[in-house]
């Protein structure tokens, strides 16, 4: 057992996989210097300049080079420093990487990982450095999407992503990099596509991803004091989506609150909510409820940021609302 920060867990996962498979190579801006978020520290020294490459500020070249190298059989891990910068290589991600296997009739596979810092988390990064970009990716079939909620997941999901033969985007949360957790010895791998029930509860199902898992847990504790038992599910990956775990929970609780950090206009929570409204309709006893970030670009001043970011209070309030709005169980179809 060792206590690692989220950022150390990322570096450890990279080291574990690079040691295990010499086809694993890293590229990105300043990665050889350890990276702006210190997630690649020591790797250049340990694995050499061939396998840990600094790039120019050329996100299209970074993503494209990762794709080409993957087609040739390497297993590249490309760092896109802030996930907002995927916008500068979106064609490579959405139109090339996501589609080339399909449009060539399966002639190529892309065992590659795109990773970087995502989300707001109240750090004052603002609208061009604080978005929840996993939602852009989820509109595009062909990309697997993982977003770890803590150090153990940061380690295990990244390892699984590197071992996966398909393109996986790992959205690390910049506000979690300093978070610490005990991590077991030996190889760490968390399979993609398996949600984790982090708290059991009978009254309502709270679904979170990445930083909102902690928000849901904190809300659940607050609600427990009021005798409300919330079940909290950490999705871990959006693609593959473990809808079964969510649906099974809703079948028990009859109530669903989905908690996203992104603006509500269109985010992964809408997809999860729609699945429940279609496939768990019979067991729903209350309106399917979404709690999401304010539908505005992210402001910087702390007072404004707090106003739009998802909070424990807003989640707890939504749960109280859902319980209030509930239809007597007898009337469910």
């Amino acid at each position, binding site marked *: 057992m060792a206590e690692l920060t989220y950022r150390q867990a990322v570096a450890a996962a990279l080291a574990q996989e690079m040691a295990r498979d010499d086809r694993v190579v890293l590229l990105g801006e300043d990665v050889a210097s350890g990276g702006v978020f210190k997630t690649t520290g020591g790797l250049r020294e340990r694995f050499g300049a061939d396998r840990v490459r600094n790039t120019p500020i050329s996100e*299209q070249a970074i993503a494209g*080079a990762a794709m*080409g190298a993957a087609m*040739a059989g390497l297993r590249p891990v490309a760092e896109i420093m802030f996930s907002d910068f995927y916008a500068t290589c979106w064609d490579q991600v959405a139109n090339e990487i996501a589609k*080339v*296997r399909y*449009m060539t009739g399966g002639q190529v596979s892309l065992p590659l990982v795109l990773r970087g810092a995502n989300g707001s988390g109240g750090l004052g990064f603002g609208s061009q450095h604080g978005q929840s970009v996993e939602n852009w990716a989820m509109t595009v079939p062909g990309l697997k999407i993982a977003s770890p909620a803590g150090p153990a997941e940061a380690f295990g999901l990244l390892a699984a992503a590197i071992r996966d*033969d*398909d393109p996986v985007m790992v959205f690390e949360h910049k506000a979690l990099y300093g978070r610490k957790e005990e991590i077991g010895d030996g190889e760490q791998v968390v399979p993609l596509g398996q949600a984790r029930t982090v708290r059991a509860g009978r009254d309502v199902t709270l679904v979170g991803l990445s930083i909102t898992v902690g928000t849901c847990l904190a809300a659940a504790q607050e609600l427990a004091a009021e005798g409300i038992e919330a079940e909290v599910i950490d999705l871990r990956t959006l693609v593959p989506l473990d809808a079964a775990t969510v649906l099974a929970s809703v079948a028990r609780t009859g109530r669903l609150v989905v908690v996203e950090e992104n603006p509500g206009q269109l985010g992964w929570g809408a997809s999860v909510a729609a699945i429940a409204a279609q496939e768990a309709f019979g067991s729903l006893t209350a309106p399917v409820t979404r709690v999401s970030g304010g539908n505005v670009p992210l402001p910087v001043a702390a007072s404004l940021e707090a106003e739009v970011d998802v909070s424990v209070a807003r989640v707890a309030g939504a749960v109280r609302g859902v319980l209030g709005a509930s239809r007597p169980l007898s009337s469910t179809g």
Partner: protein
Amino acid sequence: MDVADDLELFEQMCFLRHFEERADVLYRRGLIHGPVHLGLGHEAVAVGAASVLRPDDYSLGTYRGHAHALARGAPADAVLAELLGREGGICGGKGGSMHITSVEHGYYGSYAIVGAHLPIACGLAWAALIRRTEQVTVCFFGDGATNIGAFHEAVNLAAVWRLPVVFVCENNWYMEYTPIGEVIPVALPAADRAAAYGLDRIVVDGNDVAAVRQVVGDAVRAARDGQGPSLVEAQTYRLKGHSAADGGAYRPAEEVARWRERDPLLRTRAVLAAAGTAPEKLDEIEARIKSGLAELAQQILARPAPDPAGAWTDVWSDGSWQWRN
């Protein structure tokens, strides 16, 4: 292929020419679903470049890519089946004309977003560099592609990393309906940009297969020898419209006429004639290729359409498509 005599090159160009002419006919008969971009007039670039590559070298092209796939050895029946949306298509019917790919022959795909494949070419070349396999990557693109950001990022990265990649710009002087001269501030779209990446200014007559063989051959050798990337501008002309749906009316008649005289097939015919090959022999070769392709088209048209179930395969490496349980 390492050596190639002029006759062999002629036959290959002839094959590409009549493959495209056939595709044009099939398109106008409404037998091809989706857009088709023909490489008519560009044959010498595809054939000349392919002739200097090793079977394990990588090449990539654009939506105007039939010729590049065939030149590397992609089976004509599978390419034609892909165009016609019949069983046995080289991409299983999922790619169509714009995405012809034959990894088995080193042709890593046709890309339909202008400029997008240049960064990808860097990745293939990077893999070869890391593995020290001496494989070279050749990436074909158009004059219009030199104005998009991906071109800049890719050529720059290739130069910084000294990647074994040869970027070949097929300058046919038009981006769709717009003359390239209207949208570049220099005379030549690729050659006049080379210095910005510390590369030599290389121009070749793209309608002269021997010249292409020579110039691209030198660039490929340099890349193989670890001397880094090259940017080659091959000047050519498309004999028809941008796509099979375009008549190309926006091009001055005398310009078209001038370039028709420089048709790469006529050029090679002249060379062969000068070397003593009887024109009749060339006519006979051309006739055989032409009828062979007409026949091939008939055979493929007789095939059924791909099984709809095929729409649900090849998203993921395990063959499945499901995104949730």
